């Protein structure tokens, strides 16, 4: 997957998400998820990504169980869980196999998204691990003053509010610092150029985009005028 251009992976993310909505057979959705896991194995990502995926699988299972408990059929419950899993898996594959700066360049140069908006998207992605780290640090600081996440769910949710406030304020401060730092380094300048070196499409990209688009079109036609697929 690393050899494909960021734009191809962005398009693939959208296409797989459409497939997840169009397919309503648990077996086919499980097949798509399996295919994505195979892609992930080929991509050779870090063990942290696999841990995250394990969490996703657990969440998908929980979602399916909840659906079933609230009156859905087993088939519908499985479809719901698998749809969520498929949509998130492809997103993770894209992020794990693409540099954030390449995604920004693809969004700006190939998708014609204004650079400010593209940067906002990628900066938000980059903030996630920082935010999790900060959340842990704030929780630790509060725990040393008697904050404890023990007790029932309501109690835990209420006590978590003490973590949220410092976390949000620190995130705001951090984003202000980051904005200033970016401006000082030329962000927003008229002469600013995004590099296209890593984002240009090649033959393999066109083949993958064409094939997956054709499959998607066939699925949409089949959905509108069922021919038994």
């Amino acid at each position, binding site marked *: 997957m690393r050899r494909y251009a960021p734009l191809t992976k962005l398009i693939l993310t959208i296409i797989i998400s459409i497939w997840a909505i169009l397919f309503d057979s648990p077996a086919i959705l499980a097949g798509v998820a399996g295919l994505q896991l195979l892609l992930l194995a080929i991509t050779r990502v870090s063990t942290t990504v696999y841990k995250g995926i394990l969490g996703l699988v657990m969440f998908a299972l929980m979602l399916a169980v909840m659906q079933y408990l609230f009156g859905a059929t087993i088939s519908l419950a499985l479809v719901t869980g698998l749809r969520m899993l498929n949509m998130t898996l492809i997103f993770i594959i894209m992020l794990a196999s693409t540099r954030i700066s390449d995604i920004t360049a693809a969004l700006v140069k190939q998708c014609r998204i204004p650079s400010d908006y593209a940067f906002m998207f990628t900066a938000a992605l980059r903030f996630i691990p920082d935010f999790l780290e*900060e959340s842990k*640090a*704030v929780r*630790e*600081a*509060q*725990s*040393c*003053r*008697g*904050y*404890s996440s*023990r007790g029932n769910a309501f109690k835990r949710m209420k006590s978590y509010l*003490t973590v949220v*406030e*410092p976390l949000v*304020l*620190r995130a705001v*401060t951090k984003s202000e610092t980051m904005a200033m730092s970016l401006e000082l380094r030329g962000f927003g300048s008229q002469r600013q150029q995004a590099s296209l070196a890593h984002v240009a499409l090649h033959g393999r990209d066109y083949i993958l985009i064409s094939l997956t688009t054709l499959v998607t079109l066939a699925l949409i036609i089949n959905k509108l005028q069922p021919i038994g697929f």
Partner: protein
Amino acid sequence: MLELRQVSFAYPQFTAVRDISLTVEPGEFTAIVGKNGSGKTTLTRLMMSLLKPSHGQILLNGQDTKKLLPADLATTIGYVFQNPDRQILRDTVEQEIAYGPQQLGFSPDRQQKNVQMAMEVCGLAELAQAYPRSLSKGCKQRLAIASVLALEPQMLILDEPTSGQDATDKDKMMKLLADLNNQGLTIILVTHDMEILMQYAQRVIVLNAGNMVFDGTPNDLFMDNNPIAAWGLQVPTILHLSQKLAKYGIPATNSADRLCQSLLGPMEDKQL
């Protein structure tokens, strides 16, 4: 009393603390020093139960802390982080200090008494209604100390509390810690500041690559032939000057006042 028995801790990528055994007696003023990444902060986090040892045992007043949360230790150990912003969550200094006692269910009378005491001890009484986030770094750090003092701890662990502060704030902070120590509070201080170490600490623990390589008095650390440069430390300026002057018959000392007296005393005598 805090006792560490053959404590080790490993992160997934490396071992941060290796086989450390030590005892911190009540009323001690101990400094933990060493290079960046030598394991100082990890060691204090183990003491506070923010991390659990991979091997070994930590006993606080005879009780194993393995199954305890930091919140369970909060009334015995006050832990002050390097960055006070992470703990500020209330709108006034007074409310901020009251947060801990409220969390731990202290009675309203005890809360009020402790908040007043903590503000007075830390020199924050006049700032009781101030917005905590608008305070200077030094005041925020004193607020962080006041916040844990309100929980009536027996011991304070401070992770580089003077970093990023000007000389006045640094001085205030260290005088506050010395006063608290004189009142019987045990202090464990992580620091890179050798002048502070020399002036205030009774005991120094040096860590190097996760190993405890020295445990003794500041004088022993600098006077003996220890490889202090290899441990990432520097001889305090006064002591360095004094050691250079020793070959001219000036008695070696770590006190600026005593050195001045040794140097200027004979001149002043002549003038008289």
